């Protein structure tokens, strides 16, 4: 196992380098002079322009720029956000807890909806439960996330007034920051009202992000349950006299879960992209909204850093899922 982990970590190095290379290549795709675009209508002396150019490393030849980009990225130095007048990494760090809270909530919801539904549909294959679940899943994967978010907002915020339209909190005073996740911090500081408020704000964005992911998870789980139910060892377990429930819990669930886990990790990629859209719709103060704002403010260093951050997180999660897949399914050891 230790060797497998080490192998996996070594394999990561070229992948991460290539990822950095793609992000670097993106930055060279800006039409015209990025400095002029960033400055826009603002007046700047030639000295200031030159200083900014030097600060962003744009005065170096391309190869040197790449090496310096990689070097600085490895040290967590993504330059300064021209707009915020602070290091890019600090700006991102401020927004990160909100995004993590939303992503965690959505993942938990998606797993909680998708896997049990998939299990149910797989076991009751061809019956009305299965058909209803399968059709909902197909609609779920065919629906654009931004539209789902607006529909939920229209129904539950605008018409029913159950949930707030946007934002992360309605309070001016937030609970003492320990984890920076509002749900957990409000419990830690023993403030049920703040907890309820945080939950009400979190609900719609989390559901919007979770439902498409739940749909994919449901389909994968259903397919693998159907596969596993056909396997000889399930027949054997039944013949042995094990109850249907025990067979489902002991044999089917464990074996059907492995594909769901690797798909869940892939779906995190969709979640990362979707988070940019959902945070924009619900004015959620996270990194996703930050990057969309940064694009329109032509704040290139910030866009670059966030895209790289998301790509790296995705690569790491995929490797983690590979390892987890091996644990769930020991036959895959190669």
């Amino acid at each position, binding site marked *: 196992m230790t060797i497998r982990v080490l192998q996996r970590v070594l394999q990561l190095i070229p992948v991460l380098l290539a990822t950095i290379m793609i992000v670097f290549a993106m930055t060279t795709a800006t039409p015209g002079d990025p400095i002029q675009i960033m400055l826009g209508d603002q007046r700047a002396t030639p000295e200031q322009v030159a200083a900014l150019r030097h600060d962003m490393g744009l005065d170096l030849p391309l190869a040197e720029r790449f090496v310096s980009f990689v070097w600085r990225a490895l040290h967590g130095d993504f330059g300064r956000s021209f707009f915020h007048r602070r290091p890019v990494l600090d700006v991102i760090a401020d927004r990160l807890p909100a995004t993590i809270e939303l992503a965690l909530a959505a993942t938990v919801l998606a797993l909680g909806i998708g896997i049990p539904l998939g299990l149910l549909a797989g076991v009751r294959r061809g019956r009305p439960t299965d058909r209803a679940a399968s059709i909902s899943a197909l609609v779920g994967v065919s629906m654009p996330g931004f539209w789902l978010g607006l529909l939920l907002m229209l129904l539950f915020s605008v018409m029913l007034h159950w949930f707030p339209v946007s934002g992360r909190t309605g309070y001016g005073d937030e609970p003492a920051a320990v984890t920076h996740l509002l749900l957990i911090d409000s419990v830690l500081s023993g403030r049920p009202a703040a907890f309820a408020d945080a939950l009400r704000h979190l609900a719609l964005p989390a559901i919007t992000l979770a439902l498409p992911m739940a749909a994919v998870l449901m389909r994968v789980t259903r397919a693998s349950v159907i596969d596993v139910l056909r396997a000889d060892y399930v027949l054997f377990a039944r013949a042995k006299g094990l109850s249907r429930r025990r067979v489902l819990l002991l044999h089917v669930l464990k074996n059907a879960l492995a594909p769901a886990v690797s798909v869940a990790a892939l779906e995190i*990629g969709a979640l990362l*992209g979707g988070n*940019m859209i959902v945070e924009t719709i619900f004015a959620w103060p996270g990194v996703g909204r930050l990057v969309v704002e940064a694009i329109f403010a032509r704040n290139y260093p910030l866009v670059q850093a966030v895209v790289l951050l998301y790509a790296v997180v995705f690569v790491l999660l995929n490797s983690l899922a590979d390892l987890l897949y091996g644990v769930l399914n020991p036959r895959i050891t190669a």
Partner: protein
Amino acid sequence: MSASLTIHEASPSALGLRRFITDRTSLGCVAIVLVAGLAALFASAIAPHDPADADLMRRLQPPVWQAGGDWSYPLGCDGLGRDMLSRLVFGARVSLGVGFGVVLVSSVIGTLLGMLAGFARSAINAVLSRVADVLLGFPYLVFAIGLMGMMGPGLGNIVITLVLKEWVVAFRVARGETLGAREQDYVEAARALGCPSWRIMCGEILPNILSPVLVVATIRMAHVIIMESSLSFLGLGVQPPSVSWGGMVADGREFLAEGWWVATLPGLAILVVVLAINLASQGAREAFDPRLHR
């Protein structure tokens, strides 16, 4: 005289086609996509009004089935008083056009490179496969938003961005199928006859890997349509006066309370078209898969 016994042996693809066109759901879905495609092609002839014709007197005029609706603007008007129906018809151009165009270009590029990589199995294969792996390991929308953010909005940039990410899908399918096909006897035979490599690839392998590539291409079109509309929703897509469904949903965000139809109808259009493509390709897979009909 003996009674002659005739067996009508239809080819597998003819059987598949027969199964496909007798399936009502699949047929209905194909019809929906065709109607949307025709609307996109003949938008200027079909649309009752100019999609850019704004009139604040008609601002947020509701659809015909609601009080205050009017048959000359059956689906109502948006926040600038522009006809929703005409905008939906013109929006189909961008959504379906980008969906079809991106999938077409990426499939051609991906299939050619995939055949090359699968057939050559040399350094070309190693390099292309690594590039494909890395691109695949990049979250789709993050890649698209990041690159569009750098290049700036516009129809051409959307197509470039999505093709850069999308060719990998066809590449992997074509490469995998080619790896299998090159071991077959007919390829061996062609090589023994002295056929040059390019003729084996185009004449022998391509026809044999075409159907999996086509099946994947149809499913990917649904995905590309959602990606385009997501970019347009964020304001990174086509710019006004061009109309896109994603951009229309974004326009409707401010009017959720006063005019639900402005954001809802274009989203419904995306859902219906994407769902139809998904259902039709699912039907096609089931109809043409011989393993399901033994």
